[in-house]
């Protein structure tokens, strides 16, 4: 969650950037790179694709910032570009019959905690692959809603602003996403 001061600073920076201040533009890139990269990664899964889409997001934002009317909504505006780029990539991948599951191919050592036994690492890696497979089959809009709500702690209203839809739509998409995850991952409930 973000405080009022952050938003005010962002708005001031966005205002300067909109007026052609390249230093302010650079500061916004530095400030938002972690959030945008995470958001994109949670959509597309692949580190290299994440880097490319995040860069494209910022370059598009920089090219269009002079047309941004409400600097108070810079974050929503930027996230929307990132989500559009990510969803476009997912749809392109699906159209080409290539799934975006490369995230699951990360080395097991990168998943497990230090000191874990190999069998635990293997189990962790398998679970991770399963979670990612389930997330990957969510429709893009529901995935976006779930990612913003669960990983970024955004409110229904913030998500509605970003996706340009109603809060009812956000709630419905989130309910569907939770139902999907519950149904696809609930097989292990009895093990806990």
């Amino acid at each position: 969650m973000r405080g009022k001061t952050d938003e005010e600073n962002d708005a001031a920076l966005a205002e300067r950037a909109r007026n052609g201040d390249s230093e302010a533009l650079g500061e916004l890139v530095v400030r938002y790179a972690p959030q945008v990269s995470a958001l994109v990664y949670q959509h597309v899964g692949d580190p290299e694709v994440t880097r490319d889409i995040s860069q494209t997001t910022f370059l598009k934002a920089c090219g269009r910032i002079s047309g941004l009317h409400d600097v108070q909504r810079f974050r929503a505006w930027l996230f929307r570009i990132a989500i559009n780029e990510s969803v476009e990539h997912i749809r392109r991948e699906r159209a080409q019959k290539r799934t975006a599951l490369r995230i699951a191919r990360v080395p097991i050592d990168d998943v497990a905690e230090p000191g874990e036994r190999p069998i635990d690492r293997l189990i962790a890696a398998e679970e991770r692959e399963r979670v990612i497979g389930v997330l990957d089959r969510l429709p893009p809009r529901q995935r976006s809603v779930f990612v913003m709500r669960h990983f970024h702690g955004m409110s229904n209203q913030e998500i509605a602003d970003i996706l340009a839809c109603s809060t009812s739509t956000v709630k419905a998409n989130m309910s569907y996403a939770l139902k999907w995850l519950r149904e696809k991952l609930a097989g292990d409930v009895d093990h806990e």
Partner: protein
Amino acid sequence: MNDDACRGFRERLTAYIYGELADTTDFEHHLADCPACRQELEATRHALAMVDRAGLDDAPDGIADAVVSGVLSKLRPTPKRPATRWLNRVAAVAACLLVGTIGTWIFVRTSGSDPATNSGRGLGLAARAVSAEGQSVLRLLDELEAEDDILVQLLGEKETEQPHIDPNRDQKGEESA
């Protein structure tokens, strides 16, 4: 089990899970009475715990830094070389022609008593002089441009790497966000 109460439970499940339900009394009262809803809540929490363990909170290490350096390197101001180059060339050639024309005119006016003969020879000499002068200026400009290219390469600012930004795409939707 009560259908209406279960429907109300499902509507408030997300808010309850994320700690956004102001009054949880009714919700928890229903949970105590309804095994099906209790199991649904448990299954949802379990699924979300699995998602959390998958380590998707952030992009892998180094990605954000790579994004910053990649974007900032492309945002550095690029010299507007092509337009300036052609303007320089046109200005130089125009200057040469002007000087040559004035020189020719002066030469013709101040040369010997036979204007018909001398003016023809004078024009030829003047034209050669203008041509030579123009060639020198163009060679000098080429050398300057070559130095400019080397500087640009050293700075890593290749124009072909500039991203294509389509200002119209999604503009309407993003502005409304």
